[in-house]
């Protein structure tokens, strides 16, 4: 390790170091400071009020909803996207030709902006849309975005639509790395197709499945655009995500201090949840002997 390397190392990493100083440490400290003030984003003065913001946030119904909505989205989004991605991956992997063409096709939804996919869904669910006209004919008049459960499902489905192809791409590379001899040996032993999937494919796919699961769980903590566009967090806070709540408090209600406190709570909840999920996934894999 010579002097020259030291100098070059610091020089080359300096863009990142400067960036993290301005856009990580700076905001982080500022955020801690804001969270103990009652500043309202425009007033020239503010008071330091200690932990009042945190106490208020812990009692607020919309913060409670932001907490639970994350896990509701997990329950909807993660199983759907995982099953779809595995289905797409297995299906496409078994095609003798045009594999990559299909994969790119399934990947296309990932390129759409949340604004655009929300717009399309809003159109598909509009009062005069074929689906709703049909449903009214058989006597069902559903207010898709005005009913808590269906609003949750719709946002979950948009996300599943968007991420399926991306995760399927990750899973197909996992499938491709499975040794064909394992299947050949199984075929000689007369293993049925169902056993083949559950006993061979799934266990050997576990490393890539782990990746996609972690990614999918992560997505649920960052939902904003679809909710902002379609429901604004409603009806009755049923789709109020952390990002939506923080955005509303900071930039609509202008409660910068309070919003910072909520953001800190959100970060803690995210950090702990992701940590627990990772541990659970690892235990699950180990218990089944997949790792």
């Amino acid at each position, binding site marked *: 390790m010579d002097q020259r390397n030291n100098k070059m190392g*610091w020089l080359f990493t300096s863009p990142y170091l400067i960036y993290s100083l301005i856009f990580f440490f700076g905001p982080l400290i500022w955020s801690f400071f804001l969270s103990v003030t009652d500043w309202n984003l425009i007033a020239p003065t503010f008071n330091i009020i200690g932990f009042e913001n945190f106490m208020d946030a812990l009692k607020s119904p919309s913060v409670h909803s932001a907490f639970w909505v994350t896990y509701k989205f997990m329950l909807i989004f993660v199983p759907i996207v995982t099953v779809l991605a595995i289905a797409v991956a297995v299906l496409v992997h078994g095609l003798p030709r045009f594999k990559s063409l*299909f994969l790119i096709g399934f990947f296309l939804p990932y*390129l*759409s902006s949340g604004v655009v996919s929300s717009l399309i869904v809003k159109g598909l669910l509009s009062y005069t849309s074929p689906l709703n006209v049909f449903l009214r004919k058989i006597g069902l008049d559903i207010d898709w975005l005005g009913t808590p459960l269906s609003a949750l499902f719709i946002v979950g489905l948009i996300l599943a639509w968007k991420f399926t192809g991306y995760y399927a791409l990750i899973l197909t*590379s996992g499938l491709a790395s499975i040794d064909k001899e394992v299947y050949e040996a199984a075929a000689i032993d007369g293993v049925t197709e169902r056993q083949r999937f559950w006993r061979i494919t799934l266990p050997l796919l576990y490393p890539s499945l782990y990746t996609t699961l972690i990614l999918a769980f992560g997505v649920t903590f960052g939902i904003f655009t679809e909710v902002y566009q379609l429901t604004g967090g409603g009806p009755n806070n049923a789709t109020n995500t952390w990002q939506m709540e923080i955005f509303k408090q900071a930039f609509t209600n202008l409660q910068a201090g309070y*919003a910072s406190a909520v*953001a800190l709570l*959100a*970060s803690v909840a995210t950090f702990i949840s992701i940590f627990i999920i990772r541990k659970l996934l690892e235990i699950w894999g180990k218990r089944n002997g997949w790792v």
Partner: protein
Amino acid sequence: MVGSNRNRGVRRTVRYVLAIALLLVMVYPYLYMVLNSFADWTQIDKQLVPTKYSFKSYEWLFTGGETGITRPWLHAFLNSVIVSLASTVLMMIFGVMVAYALSKLNFFGRNAINNFVLFHMFFPAIILLIPTFLIIQRVGLYDSYFGLILPKAVSLWAIFMYTNFFKAVPTVFIEAARLDGASDLKIMYKIMLPMSKSITTVIFLFLLMERWTELLWDMIAVKSDSMLTLNVLISQMFGPYGSYPGPLYAASALLTLPIIIMFIIFGKKFQEGMQFSLK
């Protein structure tokens, strides 16, 4: 034997039919958007596939239709191009630089920085949103291109990906180049980058796509109409202009098209890179 062959043929056909059906379902929303952008205004959102078509929606985008308000969508489109290209290029340059140092330069503090990058990558970014907005405001970058670009000039994910790939490049190449008197910049540019060509395409496309579709920051960092990015403009049209679904579909199609074209142009490289990066 004949029986099993036929069986296999049937199974293969079933697979293709299933795959095509599933693909159609997945891609249908896009088709719905494009068809509706060309649909006659009486048919928008009323049919799965419209039967009457016109260019009225696109015309409306230019002229503002009967409202007479010309929404600055072309301007917004250019803003999107400027902001996302500038951001992405900076993220790429800084990503390569930092990753080169972290993977190939043995310097004091390297492990600390390396660990910190990982921590930073998994840190919930939402907590930084309000203060980042305040910083931009205080230094006078609110409502400017720099305010849109600078907070998104470094991508931890890009650093992480490049670091992993550079680690795989044998150090022998670099030592040989150094003996020949090549500078670090030259090594980076002439050896490291060409060796990671396929992964570069993947990183570039992902970063560009993400920046192009960013809503939250672009909405916060900007106030005047002339600074809006196309994604934000469409989001705003949702509200007061929501009664004009045709132009909304047209603008959405124009937002989606460039990124799809990029992926088609780089399609082959992208696939290679994905396969490489997922190994």
